[in-house]
Structure formats: structure tokens, C-alpha cells
């Protein structure tokens, strides 16, 4: 007859396998902190590109800077792209490192499932925002990029650490506020992508990474 301890061990094994086979648990808290820092730097650069004025400024985007309209849009686009690439790069680096440290495979079924559930809504939203951006709706893009990102995170949270859900919700709320108050949209952008990521990343780092 199996002892109680053996049975408990069995149950723990079952729980852990159910968890590991559906969720990617190596997501590193440090990557959240770095993504937040890059976003804050990016927001300050965007603010500087816009001549320290908000893109929702009533005079419109063309009259608030010495740069030509085309140049301005190009700089903003480059700024956002570099922030995104740096954030993705560090997320990959730190999560890969964490998976190695824990001795679990980085590239597994659960990783693929997380990526599909994150990037399909995110890419759809990204293309949508890019088209709006090309058409000059910068203030709407600031809001929508956060809403889409938040929805993608909320969706992806089913396949990774559960706390990602709250980061998603926080970004959705920030996105809605950015749309309500376009004059200070960039501030909400900095809070959502910057401050919240740093707060989330620090919390997760302390809780899971050690």
C-alpha cells in the first residue's frame, strides 16, 4: 500500500505537469523592468521629437515642431520600433536565461502557444495602428497601441504566469484614458508601458526569480 506521502507526491507531480504542459513559466521579471525602462526613455525621446508638446495639441502635429511632417513621423516611428525591439530582445534574453537556470526547455509546446496567443492579436493591432499612424492619427495610435497590447497580454496570460493578466488590464485602462485626454496621452503611454512594466517586473522578479 502506498503511503500518504507517496500519494501527495503523486498529486504534486500531476499538478506540476498540468501547469508546465500548458503554461510558459520561465517569463522573467527582469524583462518587464527593462521593457519599462526602454519605454520611458522612448516616451521622453518622442516628447522631445514633438518639441515638448503633446501630439493631441489642437494646432495639429505639423505646426508644433521645426521638422517637416514626414521627418517627424519617421523619427517617431523609428523611436517606437527601437523600443519594441529592445524590449523583445531583453525579454527573450532574460527568459531564456531563466529557463536554463531552472533546467526546463525554453522552446516547447507551451512557449509556442504563448507566442501565438500574444502575437496574433498584437500583430493585428500593430498593423491597424501602423495604418492609422501613416494617415496621421498619432494621438489615436498612442491610445490604441496600449489597448491592443493590453488585450494581447490579457489573452496571453492564460498561457503564462497569471499576473500578466493585471498588466494587460492596467494597459487597457491607460489606453482608454489616453483617448479621453489626448493632450496628455503621452503621459498615459509612459505610465502604461513604462511605470506599470517596471512595477510589474519588480514584483515578479521578487516573487519568482530570486
Amino acid at each position, binding site marked *: 500500500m502506498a503511503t*500518504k506521502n507517496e*500519494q501527495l507526491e*503523486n498529486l504534486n*507531480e*500531476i499538478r506540476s*505537469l498540468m501547469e508546465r504542459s500548458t503554461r510558459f513559466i520561465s517569463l522573467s521579471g527582469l524583462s518587464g523592468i527593462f521593457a519599462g525602462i526602454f519605454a520611458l526613455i522612448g516616451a521622453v525621446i518622442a516628447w522631445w521629437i514633438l518639441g515638448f508638446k503633446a501630439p493631441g495639441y489642437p494646432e495639429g502635429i505639423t505646426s508644433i515642431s521645426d521638422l517637416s511632417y514626414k521627418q517627424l513621423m519617421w523619427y517617431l516611428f523609428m523611436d517606437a520600433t527601437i523600443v519594441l525591439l529592445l524590449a523583445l530582445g531583453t525579454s527573450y534574453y532574460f527568459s531564456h536565461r531563466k529557463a536554463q537556470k531552472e533546467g526546463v*526547455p525554453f522552446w*516547447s509546446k507551451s512557449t509556442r502557444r504563448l507566442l501565438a496567443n500574444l502575437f496574433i492579436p498584437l500583430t493585428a493591432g500593430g498593423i491597424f495602428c501602423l495604418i492609422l499612424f501613416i494617415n496621421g492619427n498619432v494621438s489615436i495610435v498612442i491610445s490604441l497601441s496600449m489597448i491592443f497590447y493590453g488585450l494581447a497580454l490579457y489573452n496571453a496570460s492564460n498561457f503564462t504566469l497569471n499576473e500578466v493578466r493585471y498588466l494587460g488590464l492596467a494597459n487597457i485602462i491607460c489606453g482608454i484614458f489616453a483617448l479621453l485626454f489626448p493632450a496628455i496621452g503621452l503621459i498615459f503611454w509612459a505610465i502604461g508601458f513604462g511605470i506599470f512594466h517596471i512595477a510589474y517586473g519588480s514584483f515578479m522578479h521578487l516573487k519568482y526569480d530570486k
Partner: protein
Amino acid sequence: MENPIEHLDKIYDSRIRLGIMSILMVNEWVDFNSFKEFLETTDGNLASHLKALEKKELITVKKQFIGRKPKTSYRATAKGKISFQNHLDALEKIIKEQK
């Protein structure tokens, strides 16, 4: 009083078979290599445990070709899910009674 241990299925005595069923309770189709990653076992060992579960009709097998590479995937049958659920219930009962 009935003995809950009678409800424990002998087939789940093995750690690997227990693991296979746990994974299949929460995933639809799982391929051979994914099992290998999660359970950290050898090909031969895993194959024989999968065969045993298949023989009891607790799981079904699907064979496909991805390009030229064969890929074998597994899914828990309705019978398998019920049987494993009963096993879990029995486990839970034993632990509660021994408290």
C-alpha cells in the same frame, strides 16, 4: 466501509503513465517529443508506457507526416479521462481520510 484504495487504478502506478495522463487532461493533442521534454525520459521507456495506455483504450494515436518527418500525437479518450478522473478522486479521498 469500502476501501478507497480499490478505486486506485493499477495502470497509474507508474510515474510516466501518471504524467502522460496529467498532460493529456489539459492538452488536446500532444506529440511524442513534447512528452519526452516534459517527462524527461528515454524513447523506449516512453513508447512502452504509451503503448500500454493505448492498449487499454485510455489514449488514441494519430500518425502524420510533417514534410518527410513522421509525427505521432496522442489524445486522451473519453474513457481515459473518466478513468483518470476517478483515480484522482480516489487519491484525494485517501489523503483526506488519512488526515
